[in-house]
């Protein structure tokens, strides 16, 4: 028997994989966007490669920039669906349904808008006429097949040899075209040429554009045709609403074919409005059609980038149908419909987001997935409440009817009296609601996570866990719950946390996960949990059962499922109850407080540690022992207790540990690493160790009470618990002092006296005295070579950056003085540190005497400065220039080298020797001058000069190069102090000498007597020395001025043989007193001899003339002195000039 019942068809695909749901599936043809349908005929793609290529150009690579067209390859004799006889519409009759099921599919895939016939036809084909006739017959066949439809026809001629015509040029084959058109009864516009060459794809795209225009026209005409029907319906006195909805929908659909989305949307909305006016009982068909129309509306709205319109339309849609609940025994159908609406909308929304839409957290697809899950849950509840009444046959899902929303049940004839509701309820039982829920919740979680709604996603985790519990997947549920628990614990949402914790405990009990169960129980029975007192007591009773080694019966906790938990726990081995539980991340009912009693202990003290254990559980908790693990494992034995104790909520348990610090730990820090608490009474069946760690992280373990947590208490001391302590050295009783002079000199070796006084009651051993300077490392050096002796011998004294030296044992109250040698290499101010360490045997408190290592130190500021400011000056032996720091010297001549030493420090120093180290290969000392500075004392800013005569060896030096000098080794000491301080030796770098070439062929020497008096003749003798190997013929000119009277020849000619000299003499009488210019001496020669520059620098130019008689004057006479009298001592007598 067939029974038509308003329900939903099942002929659509489920987007959720293999999940089955017979109700309210959106038909698959509605899910896709309509595209104009063009049928291509006459292409033999199997045998003809050209046709194959053409078909591929049409059908493949349909990217977004190509026009949206659906092509199908059909044979020329294809039977298109017959057009129904165009009866004159009976607009008044009520149709069998609203939307015919096959209509959309028919227009999308079966009735083409255009049939294109492809023929191979060349203009110059010899059999053109025959082919024309064949073509016209094919066209006629198509026309017959499409009788009654307004489907367009087009003819495409595939040509290998096309004519290429300029626009407006008459075709040479106009006659042939006309004859072809006439034979096929086609207009010229319906005939196209497709040249088959390299640019076929471009031609195909152009052809496609031309065909698309025809197609658009077809769909426009179709929508106009339907519009005519609609107008007729609207003119009726009583509105035929189902027909109106159908027409509006069809107009909308045809416009969608035309890609006119706005017009489509308008007609769909009109159809939806009209649909609302239809009041059918229950409205199943209406609901289905409304779902289809709303699906298209929302889809178009999203496509038109109006997501808000889509959302508001959808919300109105749900609002309209909210009250259409239907009969109560089929209430699940309404939930199924609501579930489907939300699911399809969520999928549409998600698709739009993938297309570039940006959603916000408050409006994202996850909300709709979540609502779909809510409705699925309601549907499942309804399903579980069905009366249990088995059918005598296995019900099959309903089959489609002719219209959307009408379906046919296959009820065997023998069971025709079974109520339809019972049949449908049995169909519903086949739906796997839980699998749907899991799928929906997972989708929702993905969406919420993507849209920054992590808390909402977390909430869905819990729901997902509940679903897993329902189907017995407890392990999965447990891991989901654990995530939620961690987050709620952290964010202090205690009510939610406690409620979830209870679920977690139940799940852990069911899968016999001991550690999770214990952790959960310890948290749940604490005062911080929001469980009822009764629940807490029951949980603790079960916990105590486990601790006592009994097999727990979970009747209190699990209710009907307790048997499963009881069995699982029974199968556990004894080792399963041995576990270590980390308490750090939890909020357990046991508080463990551990602190050192002081922040620092001295090495001779006893370290003490306090541990307090308190509980907040409703019943007392037994413990079997406690251990504290410190950072050094050596103390573990001292910080361990194996005594059993019981802690109640009122009374905390306090344990004290004491131990002496190990001598290795002196100067280190001891941390509390862990506290291990053994839970349980005397029973050996369970071995649960609770571990608290994280003391070293220094975070405050004080907890903030949660909402409503009234009975919660805080350890006030908790905030300043000391989790690590320093073991300090025993305080020293030895005094060390040093005495630094006010100012030290750079280079000086200073004996620094250090005094050590032992105030210990015992003698000290193993003493070690060290000195260092941390801030100026390398600039101050020390030596301990003469620690005990007062006399310092020069020699191999090693100076290092820091040094230390063993000190002989000192008896009680003994005093000792020692000396370090200190030397500074630069002027500085630095902190000196003297450290004395030693061992002493002492008693600490009541304990036996032990050896302690002690240390004491003293520091002082040291100031040093450089006393020596040394300049180097030089001049040529014969030169008239002043000594300078240029250090440019000629070869083969004697050089005067001056060392000027100035004392820049306020300390008076005594100079000893100044030795200039020279390279004897390039330099000699031709004249030894005794040192004048030995024993000379210099006060502040006093200067002393040392003179050295040097000569460069011509054989080893080349002009222009530099000769390195030095260093200058200066030995000196601080004056006016005791002789204990050794001599200081300063090595002073000396600037390089630059060698100048001296290849003058002539030298002129002038000797002036030391005293010149006014009006007394002064004899000048110029000795001219020929250094070359040739005879020189010279012409000498002496120019005069009015300061003297010259006797002798002013001009004369002399000849000088090679390596010989000649003396030219003259006499002058000075007229004035004071400085007098000497005659200018010029030498001219026939050759290119030019020694003017040499004469300029080597001959004296002035002489000082004394008055003849010193006049008598009253008062001290002012006698002009020659300038630079100091230099006078360096004017070397003529006789010492060594001529080569």
């Amino acid at each position, binding site marked *: 028997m067939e029974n038509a019942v308003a329900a939903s068809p099942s002929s659509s695909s489920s987007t959720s994989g293999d999940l089955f749901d017979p109700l309210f599936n959106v038909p698959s043809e509605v899910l896709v966007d309509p595209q104009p349908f063009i049928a291509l005929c006459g292409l033999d793609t199997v045998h003809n490669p050209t046709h194959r290529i053409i078909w591929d150009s049409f059908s493949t690579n349909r990217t977004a920039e190509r026009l949206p067209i659906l092509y199908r390859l059909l044979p020329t004799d294809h039977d298109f669906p017959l057009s129904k006889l165009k009866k004159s519409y009976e607009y008044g009759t009520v149709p069998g349904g609203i939307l015919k099921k096959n209509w959309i599919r028919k227009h999308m895939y079966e009735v083409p808008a255009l049939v294109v016939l492809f023929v191979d036809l060349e203009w110059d084909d010899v059999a053109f006429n025959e082919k024309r006739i064949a073509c016209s017959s094919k066209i006629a066949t198509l026309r017959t097949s499409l009788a009654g439809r307004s489907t367009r026809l087009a003819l495409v001629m595939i040509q290998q040899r096309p004519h290429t015509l300029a626009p407006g040029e008459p075709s040479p084959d106009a006659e042939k075209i006309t004859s072809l058109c006439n034979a096929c009864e086609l207009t010229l516009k319906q005939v196209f040429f497709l040249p088959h060459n390299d640019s076929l794809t471009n031609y195909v795209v152009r052809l496609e554009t031309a065909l698309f225009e025809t197609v658009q026209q077809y769909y426009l005409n179709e929508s106009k045709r339907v519009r005519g029907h609609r107008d007729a319906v609207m003119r009726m006195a009583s509105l035929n609403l189902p027909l109106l909805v159908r027409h509006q929908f069809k107009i909308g659909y045809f416009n969608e074919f035309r890609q006119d989305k706005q017009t489509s949307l308008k007609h769909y909305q009109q159809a939806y409005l009209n649909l609302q006016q239809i009041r059918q009982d229950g409205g199943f068909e209406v609901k289905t059609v409304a779902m289809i129309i709303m699906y298209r509306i929302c889809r178009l709205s999203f496509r038109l980038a109006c997501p808000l319109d889509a959302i508001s339309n959808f919300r109105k849609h749900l609002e309209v149908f909210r009250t259409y609940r239907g009969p109560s025994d089929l209430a699940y159908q309404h939930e199924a419909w609501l579930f489907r609406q939300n699911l399809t909308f969520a999928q549409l929304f998600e698709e739009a987001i993938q297309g570039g839409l940006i959603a916000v957290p*408050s409006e994202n697809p996850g909300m709709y997935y979540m609502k779909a899950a809510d409705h699925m849950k309601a549907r499942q509840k309804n399903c579980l409440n069905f009366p249990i009444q088995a059918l005598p046959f296995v019900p099959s899902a309903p089959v489609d009817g002719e219209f959307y929303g009408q379906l046919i049940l296959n009820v065997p004839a023998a069971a025709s009296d079974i109520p339809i509701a019972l049949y449908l309820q049995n169909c519903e039982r086949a739906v796997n609601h839980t699998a749907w829920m899991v799928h929906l919740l997972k989708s929702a979680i993905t969406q919420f996570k993507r849209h920054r709604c992590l*808390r*909402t996603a977390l*909430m869905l985790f819990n729901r997902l866990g509940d679903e897993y519990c329902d189907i017995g997947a407890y392990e999965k549920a447990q891991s989901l719950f654990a995530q939620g628990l961690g987050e709620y614990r952290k*964010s*202090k949402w205690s*009510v939610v946390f406690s*409620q979830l914790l209870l679920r977690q405990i139940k799940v852990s009990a069911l899968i016999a996960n001991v550690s999770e169960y214990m952790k959960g129980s310890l948290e749940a029975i604490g005062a911080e949990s929001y469980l009822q007192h009764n629940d807490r007591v029951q949980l603790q009773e079960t916990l105590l059962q486990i601790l006592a080694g009994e097999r727990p019966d979970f009747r209190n906790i699990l209710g009907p499922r307790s048997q499963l938990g009881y069995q699982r726990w029974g199968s556990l081995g004894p080792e399963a109850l041995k576990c270590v539980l980390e308490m750090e991340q939890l909020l357990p009912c046991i508080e463990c407080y551990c602190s050192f009693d002081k922040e620092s202990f001295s090495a001779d003290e006893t370290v003490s540690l306090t541990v307090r254990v308190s509980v907040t559980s409703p019943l007392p908790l037994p413990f079997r022992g406690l251990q504290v693990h410190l950072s050094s494992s050596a103390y573990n034995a001292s910080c361990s207790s194996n005594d059993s104790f019981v802690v109640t909520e009122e009374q905390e348990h306090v344990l004290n540990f004491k131990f002496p610090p190990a001598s290795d730990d002196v100067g280190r820090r001891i941390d509390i690493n862990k506290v291990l608490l053994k839970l349980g009474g005397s029973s050996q069946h369970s071995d649960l160790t609770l571990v608290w760690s994280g003391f070293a992280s220094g975070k405050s373990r004080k907890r*903030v009470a949660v*909402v409503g947590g009234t009975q919660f208490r805080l350890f006030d001391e908790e905030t300043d618990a000391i989790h690590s302590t320093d073991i300090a050295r025993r305080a020293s009783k030895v005094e060390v002092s040093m005495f630094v002079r006010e100012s030290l000199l750079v280079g000086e070796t200073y004996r620094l006296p250090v005094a050590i006084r032992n105030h210990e009651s015992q003698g000290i051993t193993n003493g070690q005295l060290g000195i260092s300077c941390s801030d100026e490392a390398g600039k101050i050096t020390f030596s301990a070579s003469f620690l005990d002796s007062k006399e310092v011998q020069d020699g191999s004294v090693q100076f290092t950056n820091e040094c230390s030296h063993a000190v002989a044992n000192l008896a009680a109250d003994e005093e000792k003085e020692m000396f370090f040698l200190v030397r500074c290499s630069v002027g500085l101010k630095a902190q000196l540190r003297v450290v004395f360490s030693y061992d002493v045997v002492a008693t600490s408190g009541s304990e036996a005497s032990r050896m302690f290592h002690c240390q004491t130190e003293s520091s002082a500021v040291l100031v040093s400065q450089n006393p020596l400011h040394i300049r180097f000056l030089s001049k040529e032996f014969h030169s008239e220039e002043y000594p300078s720091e240029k250090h440019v010297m000629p070869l083969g001549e004697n050089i005067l080298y001056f060392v000027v030493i100035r004392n820049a420090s306020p300390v008076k120093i005594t100079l000893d020797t100044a030795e200039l180290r020279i390279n004897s290969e390039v330099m000699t000392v031709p004249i030894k001058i005794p040192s004048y500075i030995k024993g000379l004392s210099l006060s502040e800013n006093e200067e002393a000069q040392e003179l050295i005569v040097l000569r460069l060896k011509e054989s080893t030096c080349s002009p222009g190069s530099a000769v390195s000098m030095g260093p200058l080794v200066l030995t000196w000491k601080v004056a006016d102090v005791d002789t204990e301080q050794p001599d200081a030796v300063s090595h002073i770098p000396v600037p390089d000498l630059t060698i100048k070439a001296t290849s003058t062929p002539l030298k002129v020497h002038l000797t002036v007597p030391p005293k010149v008096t006014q009006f007394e003749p002064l004899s000048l003798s110029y000795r001219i020395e020929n250094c070359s190997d040739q005879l020189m013929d010279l012409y000498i000119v002496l120019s005069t001025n009015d300061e003297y009277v010259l006797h002798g020849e002013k001009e004369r000619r002399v000849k000088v043989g090679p390596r010989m000299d000649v003396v030219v003499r003259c006499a002058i009488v000075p007229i004035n007193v004071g400085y007098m210019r000497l005659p200018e001496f010029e030498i001219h020669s026939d050759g290119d001899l030019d020694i003017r520059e040499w004469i300029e620098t080597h001959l004296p130019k002035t002489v000082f003339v004394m008055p003849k008689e010193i006049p008598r004057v009253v008062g001290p006479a002012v006698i002009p002195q020659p300038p630079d009298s100091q230099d006078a001592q360096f004017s070397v007598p003529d006789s010492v000039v060594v001529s080569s």
Partner: protein
Amino acid sequence: MALCIGVMGSDNQPLLIKISPSIQNPIDYHYMLYSALDIVEEKSQISQKTAGLNISGAEHRDLYLGLLYPSSDEVKIYAYCTNTKVKMILIVDATNTALKETDIRNTVKRLHLAYSNMIMNPFYEVGSPIGAKSFHNFVESIIAQ
């Protein structure tokens, strides 16, 4: 008037949650408040971004965040976020059409005022659960209205 009122601190920890005694499943409302914090955080960020400066230079923004889930059909959730990031969430029955948006806005403002008065108590540690009786009574009076 309200089914549930929640006050959350700046770290999103609950300071006070009151649920109408007529509610069968109060735990659902805890979850609702917890989930709503996602939207509150989002909305308060947006309102911070769009906040302009008024003439006096002080930052001016609307503390009232309005309806959180526009498409919710059973309950309506309204939120308010103070400048110190204290969140106040009000859940009302969506079927109660007599309730106007301005009533909600005034109610949460009064709630804010009551909260401000409450934290003047020097013994109250900011961020800890609220124990003040007067504040509890005030919140209960809003629910009972």
